[in-house]
């Protein structure tokens, strides 16, 4: 089946019209004559989307954002972002009679005295976790498959900003209920701000309007949480989707798929049904989690009080990795006292500098890559992770580092759950956060290259059929069967790597050309980046292999049990 036949074959701007319009049709025509939506709709509703599970990860993020909007608006009906003191008189007996903030009071009211309130609060929180987690997974998919390459760099930038804003949104939300954990988090944030050299103290007073905690922070976080960041997120998500439609979705290589077309299903009815259905699935999963699994039981933490703290005070998971870095950062020697000023590098480096550098690195990744490879082509076909070994290995190294910092962030819980010493976990992680990513990088790169070689083998010599044959001489061998043409095509369709090379190192007079230093670095990086990769087979090579396969009995020898070396007679 030629799948391209599913694409609309006209892109006219006016919709085709039938004979006599029905009532509904008449109304639609009335509207169309005034709004001109039909043309737009026809074009976009027939937009084609390729189908692959990994293309739906971003959708999880989109739908959980929608759920956050719905549940968040519900919460605003009762939530009161005030730090004013009030005596709790609600249904939760152990806290009755205590003096707590209005914010905490209203969180308790939502939890215990609003019908469905606790469900919605828990759904909101679970959805927040799923939102950020799915963005992260989506980002990994994009990077592993090379979807961030030209022309989609801007969408990558938007994606990273969404991730950062989502994290901030989560942090501000976590701080709103004003329970013990919230307050501990805000207290920590105050310390983080103060650790910034020179401006830290000013920053803290600007943020809190007073010495911590003051009375302004919750109202301020509230407006950031329900207006500022959601507004930015909405705008960025809209831009993200528009660019997606404009660039069209990338697709996996395969027969009939080129850099110039998109093979898949039209928006209506197929893709819309799938995507719409997926919304209900995400909603359902969130509702089940919100209904069955406790999250942030603020009534147990009690109201915030600077004199209290609880074991297991952790941020939500998305803040866990900088928290982990902070936990394993050695203290002594990293706090300086100069001219009456305290410089807390032990706080500043892990919690401010490290995340900032990480975000900048993420933002720059597509540009660094294209600078190294010198690849300025447009790419609409995805790469399999193995076909970009250095990139894949880099992402795996980042993930390893992230995971190790995560472990550090949960060091106390891991210590009690697995009966380990928190000190030893800390010492080991101090080394592993540097060593682990390097090991992961080397292993992954080698692994990818081996997979590439395996692919090449398969195309050249066929796949292992599992059929054992015995030759007249008594030798055993496994028959290799040629790959189906489609598979061969899918494997070999990819572009080769471009390796940046210097035009010439010396100018005409044999003198080192000025300004080539950067270029030489680039050439060296480029060679390192792609130099060990297996390049795709040329059509001639494939032709040759197929020819060979047709007649050939191309088997791998298997040593016979008596250890004799069997020479396999080849027919060609």
């Amino acid at each position: 089946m030629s799948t391209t036949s599913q694409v609309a074959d006209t892109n006219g701007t006016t919709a085709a019209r039938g004979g006599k319009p029905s009532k509904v049709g008449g109304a639609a025509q009335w509207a169309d004559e005034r709004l001109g939506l039909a043309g737009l709709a026809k074009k976009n509703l027939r937009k084609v989307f390729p189908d692959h599970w990994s293309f739906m990860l971003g959708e999880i993020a989109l739908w959980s954002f929608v759920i956050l909007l719905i549940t968040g608006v519900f919460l605003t009906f009762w939530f009161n972002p005030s730090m004013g003191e009030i005596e709790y008189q609600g249904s939760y007996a152990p806290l009755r009679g205590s003096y707590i903030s209005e914010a905490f009071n209203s969180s308790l009211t939502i939890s215990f005295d609003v019908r469905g309130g606790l469900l919605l609060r828990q759904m909101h929180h679970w959805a927040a976790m799923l939102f950020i987690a799915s963005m992260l997974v989506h980002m990994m998919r994009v990077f592993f498959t090379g979807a961030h390459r030209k022309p989609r760099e801007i969408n990558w930038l938007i994606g990273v900003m969404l991730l950062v804003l989502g994290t901030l949104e989560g942090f501000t939300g976590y701080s709103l209920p004003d329970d013990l954990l919230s307050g501990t988090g805000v207290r920590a944030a105050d310390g983080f701000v103060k650790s910034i050299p020179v401006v830290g103290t000013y920053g803290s007073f600007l943020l809190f309007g007073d010495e911590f905690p003051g009375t302004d922070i919750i109202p301020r976080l509230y407006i950031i949480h329900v207006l500022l960041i959601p507004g930015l997120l909405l705008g960025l998500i809209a831009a993200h989707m528009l660019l997606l439609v404009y660039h069209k979705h990338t697709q996996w290589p395969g027969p009939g798929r080129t850099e110039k077309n998109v093979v898949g299903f039209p928006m209506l009815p197929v893709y819309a049904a799938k995507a719409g259905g997926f919304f209900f699935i995400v909603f359902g999963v969130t509702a089940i989690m919100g209904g069955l699994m406790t999250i942030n039981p603020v009534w147990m933490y009690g109201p915030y009080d600077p004199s209290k703290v609880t074991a297991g005070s952790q941020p939500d998971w998305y803040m866990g990795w900088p928290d982990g870095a902070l936990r394993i950062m050695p203290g002594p020697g990293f706090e300086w006292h100069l001219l009456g000023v305290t410089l807390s590098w032990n706080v500043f480096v892990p919690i401010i500098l490290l995340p900032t550098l990480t975000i900048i690195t993420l933002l720059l990744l597509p540009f660094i890559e294209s600078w190294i490879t010198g690849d300025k082509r447009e790419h609409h076909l995805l790469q399999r992770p193995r076909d970009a070994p250095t990139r894949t290995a880099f992402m795996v190294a980042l993930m390893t580092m992230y995971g190790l910092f995560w472990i550090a962030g949960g060091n106390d819980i891991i210590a009690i759950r697995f009966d380990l010493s928190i000190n030893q976990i800390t010492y080991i992680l101090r080394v592993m956060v540097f060593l682990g990513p390097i090991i992961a990088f080397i292993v992954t790169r080698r692994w990818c290259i081996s997979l590439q070689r395996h692919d090449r083998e398969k195309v050249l010599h066929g796949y292992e059929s599992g059929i054992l044959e015995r030759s007249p001489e008594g030798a055993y061998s496994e028959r290799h069967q040629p790959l189906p043409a489609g598979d061969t095509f899918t494997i070999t369709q990819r572009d080769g790597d471009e390796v940046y090379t210097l035009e010439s190192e010396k100018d005409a007079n044999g003198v080192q050309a000025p300004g080539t230093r950067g270029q030489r670095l680039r050439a060296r990086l480029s060679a390192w980046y792609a130099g060990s990769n297996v390049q795709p087979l040329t059509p001639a090579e494939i032709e040759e292999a197929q020819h060979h396969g047709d007649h050939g009995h191309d088997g791998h020898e298997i040593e016979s049990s008596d250890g004799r070396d069997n020479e396999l007679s080849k027919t060609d």
Partner: protein
Amino acid sequence: MAGLLVLLLGLALTGTAYAAFAPAGQAEQAVADQELIDEGRELFLVGCAFCHGQNGEGVLDVRGNQLGPSLVGVGAAAVDFQVGTGRMPMVQPGQQNPSKNVAYDEQETEALAAYVAALGPGPGIPDEETYSSDYLDDLSDEERDAAINRGQQIFLTNCTACHNFNGAGGAMPRGGYAPDLKGVSEKHIYEAMQTGPSQMDVFSDGNIPPENKREVIAFLNTLDEEPAYGGFTLGGLGPVSEGLFAWLIGIGSLVGFAVWIAAHTTRTKKGKAQA
């Protein structure tokens, strides 16, 4: 050995002298006490002296590490707690000395406690009405709420830093931990506060008065009895377990659904997508 003899002689002399001069009723009581102490001493010499010394003075090993600390002045409450939760006799030195099956019956525990109490004054075993939260039944609803509320406040101020908001426990340095408080008897909670086992602080009566200790116990009972309002508690360990479940259950199932949806196309022929 000489010290022991002197001690024995001393004990015997004071005992007889006391018996000679004390009024009859008290004398009987004293004899009974003395019997209990003697019995405790026997048990102690067999089961505890190896680490704590024959007179409970503590023992150092060759490297100067404490095999067992001095028990002079730790009081009957400490013994009742340590032996009653199965912590003592310790079987293996280590970072943490967990509670385990109790090795002595009630009467023997009482005897050991009496012996250690006789070594020097210390907190005694609390009476039932000191620690029991049954008194809540006699209170009005309002007073009860107020008592539990105070208990929660005291618990959050003094205990959660180590034991976690849920009493689920937390890590201590070098492999130690503050244990889960679920299922610990009221008496042992009280005694733990009184005596501060291992790395835990002592919460003396000046620090947390007995009636407040009782309120803490009342609050801890509500943790055991309170329904889990939000559903499964996921271990009550806070955001770390929540994050784990968000990834495993949440993202895990959603990615599973995505694979499922993408595998079902409008194609009439099922199977691995070729196009």
